[in-house]
């Protein structure tokens, strides 16, 4: 048929059973192979834990005959609503050290200039207290070298408590391996600064 354009000529000659060109499925399969681990990694959430205790009630009792004779640390940290930290029963920390100020009943670390809690400074201070308090003796020579009691106002958000626990539990990491534990036995109790 000379009157028809070439494209129609071609179509006319095409059989209905002719297969269309297959899509490049191997490319899609490769993409799926990458997507599967990526999606799985997103779905699996890793969780971590902070083990805590409630303050024990009653007296300490007689104790074993070979119990440590050194005075207990009896350290207490109170979190303030404004981001301040009160450290009670610290024996080796000085007023002025890392911005510590004296305030009944202990030493107060005020928030930074930006109004945020100084978590890193808190950790440095507590590590210093812990190391100086031991006076070169092994931790076993003290009854509670790994213990601290944390108090906070009851209206404080739980997230703030967890944030503080992060900086109390471990010493500052020097980038090599896991950080060393500082206070691994943490008791939570209600309270407020000055209260």
């Amino acid at each position: 048929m000379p009157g028809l354009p070439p494209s129609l000529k071609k179509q006319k000659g095409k059989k209905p059973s002719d297969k269309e060109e297959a899509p490049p499925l191997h490319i899609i399969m490769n993409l799926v192979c990458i997507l599967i681990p990526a999606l799985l990694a997103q779905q699996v959430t890793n969780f971590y834990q902070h083990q805590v205790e409630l303050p024990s009630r009653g007296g300490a009792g007689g104790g074993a005959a070979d119990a440590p004779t050194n005075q207990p640390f009896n350290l207490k940290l109170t979190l303030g609503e404004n981001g301040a930290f009160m450290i009670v029963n610290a024996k080796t920390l000085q007023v002025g050290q890392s911005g510590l100020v004296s305030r009944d009943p202990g030493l107060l670390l005020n928030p930074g200039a930006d109004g945020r809690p100084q978590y890193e400074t808190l950790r440095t201070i507590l590590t210093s207290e812990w190391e100086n308090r031991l006076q070169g003796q092994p931790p076993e020579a003290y009854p509670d070298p790994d213990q601290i009691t944390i108090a906070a106002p009851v209206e404080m958000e739980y997230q703030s408590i967890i944030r503080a626990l992060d900086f109390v539990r471990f010493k500052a990491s020097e980038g090599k391996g896991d950080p060393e534990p500082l206070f691994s036995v943490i008791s939570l109790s209600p309270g407020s600064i000055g209260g």
Partner: protein
Amino acid sequence: MPLYPSKKKNKVEEDAELNITSLMDAFTIILIFLLKSYGSSVIDVADGYRAPTAETRLEVDRIIALQVREGGRDAIYFRIGDREEKAERLDPNLGYQMLLADLKTEKRLSDATISEEELKGAINIVANPNVTYGTILKVMQSSASAGFYKLKLIAQP
């Protein structure tokens, strides 16, 4: 009219080819099921519950989980393990009584199933970040009263 048996034979051969498109559809469905089941992780945090963020990287033990979220002034929603969610208002004198009763029941079951001595009396507490510290303390006191003394506060990175 002449017959063409060769064409019929070709058609049968074409049908015998593997249909990759259908196979991929099946894979997609399987993938969704895998994601749903594998995504449960160590702790299956239910909808509406969210752990706070933390930098500590201490691994979580596979034990019973108590999930808590705020339900208004002095009220909480809680969920123990995969049981149904319950709501309770704080009794100023008695604390969370329903929570305590449920935890006591769970403690008996937990003692019967957990063989590791270290994990006996341990509980994972998943509380929303905006829950108040006072509420957390009450929940912890209820847990301790029920026999769960090893309190593990769960956080996520």
